[in-house]
Structures are given as C-alpha cells and as structure tokens.
C-alpha cells in the first residue's frame, strides 16, 4: 500500500506491539526506520555494511543486520530490538549478567551482542563457551576481547536454566 508518491505504509510487530509507519521510502534501511521514525535508538550503526553486527535485531526469531534490510521487507514480520529484551523497567537476567560481568565497556556493540545472545539462548539454553563464541561471531567488539561478554552470557544461561545458587 502506498500513500505519497514513492513512499509506503509498513506494518509490523515490534517488541510485542503492532506498529505502523507511514510515508516511508520502501528501500529505507530498517535501522533508520527504527532509529529515526520509531525513536528506538538502541540499535547502532557501526559500519552500515553488515560486517559489525551493532545493528542486530531479531526478525522472526533470527539475528539480522538491520542496516541491510529494506523496511518494505518487514511488512507483517515480528521484530525484537534490544529495547524489547526486558519486559519491565528492570534489566532482564541476560542484560544484568552481561553488565555485572564487565561485558560492556564503551557499549556500542552491546545492543547487538544482547540480541544475538538472546537468539542463541532461545535456541540453545546451555551453550558451551565455544557455542557462545559462534553465536556472537557476527558481533565485533574492539573493547573487551570478548572474554567478559562470554562470561556474562554463560552466567545468564545458568540463571535462565534456574541453576544459580
């Protein structure tokens, strides 16, 4: 469906709610739609070419670089951004454990890492450290050396399994 010449109306599910954006150029990057039109600035642009993963969002349960997705492609889709990882004002266990482990330094990779970790843990609730590395392989971090990111995700998996002491 189109309104003004060259623009479209796109409807999708975003963090559990139905969203409708109007007057959107269909080839606008999903990253820009989320940041500029919807106002969800959690997803970051690190490279704009699908290499760094800072723009990672979840589409139909899969981790996707939103800088590579034209918004017309998400009509009817179910999208989760980093803002949707917690259901209330407090951090989810995954978010809290990543922070507590020291897995966030400058923080620019953190939203993408969290979404990728969420996708990983939804698919595998007891990943090995090697499996965690593979799960976040698409998320570049220059600050941490990944060590405490993996520690945090590993700890979060333990808590989500209900095994923490």
């Amino acid at each position, binding site marked *: 469906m189109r309104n003004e010449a060259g623009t479209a109306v796109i409807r999708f599910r975003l963090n559990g709610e139905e969203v409708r954006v109007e007057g959107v150029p269909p080839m606008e990057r999903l990253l820009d739609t989320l940041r500029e039109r919807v106002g969800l600035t959690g997803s970051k642009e690190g490279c704009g*070419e699908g290499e760094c993963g800072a723009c990672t969002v979840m589409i139909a349960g899969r981790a996707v670089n939103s800088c590579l997705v034209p918004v017309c492609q998400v009509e009817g889709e179910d999208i989760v951004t980093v803002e949707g990882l917690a259901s209330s004002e407090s951090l989810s266990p995954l978010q809290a454990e990543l922070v507590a482990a020291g897995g966030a*330094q400058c923080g620019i990779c953190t939203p993408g890492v969290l979404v990728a970790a969420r996708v990983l843990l939804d698919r595998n609730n007891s990943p090995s450290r090697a499996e965690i*590395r593979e799960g976040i392989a698409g*998320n570049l971090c*220059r*600050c941490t050396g990944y060590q405490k*990111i993996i520690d945090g995700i590993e700890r979060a998996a333990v808590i989500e399994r209900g095994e923490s002491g």
Partner: protein
Amino acid sequence: MEVGIVGFWSAQDVGKAIHPVLVEGQLEGGSLQALGFALVEEMKFEDGRLLSNRMTNCIIPTALDAPEMDIRVVECAYDGGPFGAKGIGELPMDGCAPAVLAAIEHATGISLNSLPASPEKLIRASQPGGDL
C-alpha cells in the same frame, strides 16, 4: 600456513587496579587488539590512499578468533599515580605481537620481520629464498 591461538596467558603490572573488573576488561581488550595486530590487521595503502577503509577489508578479530585469556593483574604501586595506579590502556599492546612472532619462530623456525603474520606471508617465508 595459518596461525591459531590456542591459549593466552599474561601478567600485567598496573600499579593499582582501582576498578578491577574494568582493568581486566581493558587488559583483555588491548591484548586482543595486539593479537589482531600480529595476525590479521593490515592497513594497505596505494598511492597514498588507504585501501583498507571499511569494516569489510580492515579486518579485526571476532569472538571466534579470540582465545580464552588468563590475565593476572599485578599491583606494584607507582608513586606518581593516583592510589599507585599506572596507565593500562596501552600496556597490553606491548607484548602480544612479539610473543606471537616468537611463538611462530619457535614452532616453525620462520622469523618474520613484518606484521601481520598472515598465511600468505608465512607461506612465502617458508619457501627456499622466501622473503620475510
């Protein structure tokens, strides 16, 4: 010939770890930057123009490239720093690349004199009359 890092151990004297978690994090991050410097990072220039100018071709280590790191923080207090602290950001950059090249020489006899120690460079250096 490709180099993989199977383990990483270092001890770093920081004077005083004012924020221990962040100090460890900086040491881990800086160490991986230096390992990347040793193995995969290359700034290529042509006629004064930087060719490695995007994330696609200016390659840095991913979580799959990074080893598990065991870093010991040593505190020998430094009178000139707050609470005895020294700088930590640059510190982990110093030793990693030399350590990697020393390990390569120990394993293969190849003594490179330039970075990164890429597979192509190692193959060339391992051939008779090959350059370093």
